[in-house]
């Protein structure tokens, strides 16, 4: 190790702290976050590891969970509660996987800063990493669930290859941006008001039933537009970004709006281009929302150590 102090000119950048609340400069901040990406990786790894600690099967559960899920739903809806929707398990899972990422991220994110109080009050690091790690941990399950679903669809030779698949990356982009936006917001809010984490549970339950995961989105379309001729209500239904995102996933994977054997459409029989446009709009809106939420989070993060 050199005993000679580094000349001033070679020293790294100067950090200045003032009484001004920190202002977000997204590009510079992204660079900073990139510099500490290993913290993110380690925190995600920690979350995943801790979740399955002291279990015999360990991380295998991440894979086993969606498989069992799929098996149970296939069985229940094929034998116990037969309905008029062919391949109901595929329909259900294609939307549920997206919803699960959203709900799991928010649940973890709400507690992320608060639960890491010992870290936040003792060490400086970009605080965004905490809710982002929640998102990362939930994403691990998301990826595994997606792999299981695609494998299952391939196994039963479900015809899902086609233009519809182009909706998948777009829907994912919208889902990720919207989830991160909400996660940042919920994490920051929960530091000041611990009510957030409790309200969140009931809020997510309500939100879940406003989103066409279990009931087919095509039924809603049919009821509102065909039976009642109420386009205003249909637009209101679409004002829920999660509804649009979930419909994007369903169209990408379940593919056919009205498969043979279904008396009413399972998915809204809109054109692929129209749906792509709506999902794209949600994606753009979510990215804007994410930057706004990031700004709020960043602004509030200067006082986290005091609030905890």
């Amino acid at each position, binding site marked *: 190790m050199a005993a000679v102090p580094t000349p001033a000119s070679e020293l*790294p950048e100067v*950090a*200045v*702290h003032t009484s001004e609340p920190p202002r977000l400069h997204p590009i510079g901040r992204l660079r900073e976050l990139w510099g500490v990406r290993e913290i993110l*990786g*380690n925190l995600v790894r*920690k979350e995943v590891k801790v979740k399955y600690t002291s279990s015999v099967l360990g991380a295998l559960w991440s894979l086993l969970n969606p498989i069992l899920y799929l098996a149970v739903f296939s069985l229940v809806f094929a034998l116990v509660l037969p309905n008029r929707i062919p391949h109901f398990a595929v329909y259900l899972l294609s939307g549920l996987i997206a919803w699960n990422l959203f709900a799991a991220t928010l649940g973890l994110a709400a507690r992320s800063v608060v639960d890491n109080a010992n870290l936040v*009050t*003792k060490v400086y690091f970009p605080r965004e990493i905490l809710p982002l790690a929640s998102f990362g941990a939930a994403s691990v399950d998301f990826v595994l669930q997606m792999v299981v679903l695609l494998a299952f669809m391939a196994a039963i030779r479900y015809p899902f290859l086609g233009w519809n698949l182009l909706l998948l990356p777009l829907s994912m982009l919208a889902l990720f941006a919207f989830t991160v936006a909400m996660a940042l917001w919920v994490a920051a809010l929960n530091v000041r008001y611990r009510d957030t984490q409790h309200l969140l549970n009931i809020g997510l339950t309500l939100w879940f039933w406003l989103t066409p995961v279990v009931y087919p989105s095509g039924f809603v379309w049919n009821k509102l537009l065909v039976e009642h001729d109420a386009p205003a209500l249909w637009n209101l239904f679409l004002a829920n970004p999660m509804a649009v995102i979930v419909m994007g996933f369903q169209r990408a994977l379940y593919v056919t709006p009205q498969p043979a054997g279904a008396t009413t459409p399972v998915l809204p029989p809109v054109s692929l281009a129209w749906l792509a446009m709506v999902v794209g709009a949600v994606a753009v809106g979510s990215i804007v929302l994410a930057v706004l939420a990031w700004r709020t989070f960043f602004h509030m993060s200067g006082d986290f150590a005091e609030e905890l």
Partner: protein
Amino acid sequence: MTAADGMTAAVEIRGVGKRFKRYREKPATLKERLIRFRQTSEEFWALHDVTIDIAQGSTLGLIGPNGSGKTTLLKLIAGILRPTEGTISTRGRIAALLALGAGFHPELTGRENVYLNASILGLSRAETDRLFDAIVEFAELQEFIDTQVKFYSSGMYVRLGFAVAVHVDPAILLVDEVLAVGDIAFQRKCLDKVEAFQREGRTIVFVTHAPDLVMRICDQVVLLDHGRIRAQGPPQQVVRDFRLLMTRTDLAYGAEEGTKEVEIVSADVFGSNGEAREWFEPGDGMVIQLDLKANTPVEGPVVSFAIHDDQNQFVFGTNSDWRGVTWPLFEGKHRVQFVLGGLPMVDGRFYVTLGVHSRDARTVYHTMQQALAFDVVRGPENTGAVNIPVECRSERL
């Protein structure tokens, strides 16, 4: 960013203040906030108007009584807290050792925690890979590194935390009283590491309660009291001020007892010329003076004093009888002085317990536990446990 003398400041603190809101009980929920809208918080300034330049490669000690704002200042430098006024500029990577093993997760193994903790403190995975063996060896945990941290003893936990912390490669190291952990051998090792950091030209900011350590390690010391800078400068001088401050604040919790047939009316310590003093240098003379009053005349009382150090170790004691002063019948008021020749203590805080009792020690007239306190502050020329007057000679042969 260059200070007036051309030295580069690693940390520049300019007129910094920090105001906290203090809640009687923090209203953390919306309901509480609505009910007690704008009434419960009171504000207080943890720091006020603090300006310090910390030159690159220097070691700054922060001392002060509890609650004087030392840790707050450290957190401000680290960027964990935001100043309410003023600005702080820092140059280079900062590692803040505010709590060892912060962020250790009990369910993860030592190895996993090392990687997690190291990344939070700013080490890359590759760097951690390279340093891993050194970290484990420093922590002396080779056998337990793949055990979950929840099975560690508190000592093991702290050792691992420190081992990670000292292996990060900061330009500025902030240390908050963490050296007071672990066994003596481990503390030694930690101090060696801090000294190695100094040789490598890193900047260190160091919070401690131990004046001894400050004298040994720091180039410059800041004394904080109630959030304000009380003194700033070379260690010896500031430590002196610190001792003085502490003397004023924590003097004499003296428990009293006795029949009060003879009463200690007042007592004080002076320098050998009778000047009021609260600190002494090794070798200085000292006078312990008591004013006594007999409420009823008593026969042959004995006046005694005892000196204890801050660990309550008995250092020295004697009495009037042994020093050849007796009162066949003690009446009225008397002033008693014990004139001490050169103090042999080198450094520390000392407490004086005073007593008056009968010759057979069966009757205690009046005792005052730790009635007085004084400090001995060593100069740089004196090290060790006791002061030995030394004259150094040389002649050409």
